[in-house]
């Protein structure tokens, strides 16, 4: 056996993870490429964003080019159970879940992380744009990517010190255009591949169509009312509406109306004007603190309440290990239960939790 450090790279057949593999080979690691075969909705296989036969063939070609072994590992059942059911249950419970977060927690840094360790690897490496800092603090910090437009620290807020200690994120220090250049330099067949945006398992269509196919009971007629109780119309299921939503209500009113609240018990959607929408505070639960410990006193932070939203200022008060409260400087229109509130001081991610 050789003395190289063994790393498992989660490969998707995309440019980012391919470049990760190339960089780590270059740095002298013993690299093993792994692709998870995730869940495919029956009949929609060809439309999946990742782990299609095409993507798998691409990843395999990249691995061959880099002369590294590549394996496909089945994760269909665990993905279905941990991610898809979480997604559907979330909508049934009236929230707007973010399945990528639970996927990172349960699948990438759960199932795959364990596989990597069992393959004798020291590290799991992914193509996420974020940085890990081992030096400045006694434990490992999660930092925003240098390429702020690509920063993905938001979807990594749930990682703990043990996971971070066995994780490599090679792309955090470079820009997307540098990544593409590296792919071209290595003549990787993925250099010009397009970005993927939608959720990987939604198939060919909208989230609404997916939910209707897989959880038909979510189609349930209910009332749309104003906060004073005035009946305005009928909706086809609370799951298809999210807080702050304006379009698709099917109501004509003199002023634009927005979803203010949803009452799951009575299947009622409460709407109102924009002025009624804003909220200045939230409570987050299922909290993770990157350092492993909650700060002892309230503190100022920048907070992202969605993956792609801008950070806003607020005061965070940790309640206990698993929850915190935020009071924002200004009211926000799109605080969405089910999404994560992720906390930063400057470019350092402190942790986060799911908005209640």
């Amino acid at each position, binding site marked *: *056996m*050789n003395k190289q450090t*063994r790393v498992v790279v989660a490969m998707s057949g995309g440019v980012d993870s391919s470049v990760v593999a190339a960089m780590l080979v270059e740095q002298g690691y*013993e690299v*093993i490429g792994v692709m998870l*075969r995730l869940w495919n909705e029956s009949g929609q296989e060809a439309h999946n964003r990742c782990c299609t036969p095409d993507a*798998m063939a691409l990843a395999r070609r990249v691995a061959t080019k880099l*002369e*590294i*072994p590549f*394996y*496909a*590992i*089945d994760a*269909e059942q665990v993905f279905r159970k941990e991610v898809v059911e979480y997604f559907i249950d979330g909508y049934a419970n009236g929230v707007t879940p973010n399945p990528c977060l639970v996927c990172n927690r349960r699948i990438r840094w759960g199932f795959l992380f364990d*596989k990597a360790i*069992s*393959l*004798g690897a020291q590290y799991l490496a992914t193509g996420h744009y974020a940085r890990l800092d081992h030096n400045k603090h006694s434990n490992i910090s999660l930092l925003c990517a240098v390429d702020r437009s690509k920063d993905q620290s938001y979807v990594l807020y749930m990682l703990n010190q043990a996971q971070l200690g066995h994780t490599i994120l090679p792309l955090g220090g470079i820009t997307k255009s540098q990544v593409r250049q590296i792919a071209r330099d290595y003549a990787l067949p993925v250099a010009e591949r397009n970005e993927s945006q939608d959720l990987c398992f939604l198939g060919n269509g909208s989230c609404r169509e997916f939910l209707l196919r897989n959880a038909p009971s979510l189609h349930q007629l209910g009332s749309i009312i104003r906060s004073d109780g005035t009946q305005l119309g009928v909706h086809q299921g609370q799951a298809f509406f999210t807080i702050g939503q304006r379009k698709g209500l099917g109501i004509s009113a003199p002023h634009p109306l927005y979803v203010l609240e949803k009452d799951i018990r009575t299947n009622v959607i409460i709407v109102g004007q924009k002025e009624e929408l804003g909220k200045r505070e939230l409570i987050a639960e299922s909290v993770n603190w990157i350092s492993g410990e909650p700060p002892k006193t309230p503190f100022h932070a920048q907070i992202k309440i969605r993956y792609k939203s801008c950070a806003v200022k607020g005061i965070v008060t940790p309640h206990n290990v698993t929850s915190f409260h935020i009071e924002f400087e200004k009211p926000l229109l799109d605080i969405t239960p089910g999404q994560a509130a992720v906390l930063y001081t400057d470019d350092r991610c402190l942790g986060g939790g799911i908005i209640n």
Partner: protein
Amino acid sequence: MQNQRVYLDFAATTPVDERVVKAMYPYFSERFGNPSSIHSFGQQAEAAVEDARETVAEGLNSRANEIVFTACGSESDNLAIRGAAFAARELRGANHILISQVEHHAISHTAEQLKRYHGFNLEYIPVDEYGMVNPNDVTMRIKPDTAVVSVIYANNEVGTINSISEIGKICRQRKIPLHTDAVQVTAYLAMDVEALQVDLLSIGAHKFYGPKGVGVLYIRDRTPILAIQTGGGQETGLRAGTHNVPYIVGLAAAFKIAQEEREKRVSHLLPLRDYLIGETLETITDARLTGHPNKRLPNHASFVFKEVDGNNLLMLLDVEGFACSSGSACRTGDPQPSNVLTAMGISSEWALGSLRITLGTQTTSNELESFLRVLPKAVERSRIQTAR
């Protein structure tokens, strides 16, 4: 990657013997003619194909006009089952297909298609705990309207050798054609079609140190069969398509070597196989041999390990430099227990942890020793954590 890699998957494919490459070489650019052409170029190529046919016929104890060249063992299986089924239906209204439960997919998927799209009755012959067909089970199931019977000579996943000659006798008495898939055995067992009493027999060259992409179907004279690939009149109309001359030459060369060196190969492989089986069962707990303990291919060792993730085991072994298989090649990582193991009555808590090690002419005891140093640890690391 690893400094030293050890290939232990000779049932998947074999390297082409240097002597075979040498025999093929002139037929790429120098003697490139089309055997169907009238001119001297064509004649030269035709002579090569016919020489090859004669070589194969001799090795099978058959006649040259009973040899059809195909593109692979799977194509031979397809032609045998489809061709015999359609011909028997047309000639005598036969509508029943009888195959064993442990056929290669080239047989079973073909038969399933004949059932689904062409209305044939498909019946399976069960196997015992070793994956072996009891000839009495053929006697019990064969019918006057059976179009074709197919029983694999030796199974690819578990290596068990079937009593083809006994089954052949049963079929011959009833004048029902018997096909056997001999793809796995060509390098190791006698291939005498008279002794085996078979009417159809499939071969693929790359399993015996010949090239990929060429096979043979032996068709006993007067066995009714319908062409599946139609076009030009090659292979007496049974297999249209320009002859792949260099590969046909390569198949014959490899076949001849396999016949001549069979005893030498078997006496090299048998002690290695038995050493591997003995050590594995001794050093690993909750390990079982699959397939028959001695009526098995001389290069073939296959196991199941209780509550082991077989795909994980294969990856671990590969990372350590040892190329093995779970039985049937599965690159997508979809964990379904093998239908062969299931047919043998092996429960899924064992069947998902399958491992096949198949040896080759170049395999050394040193290689097996280093393999056996790695295997126990790899198995233990692949045990499924039921707590999760």
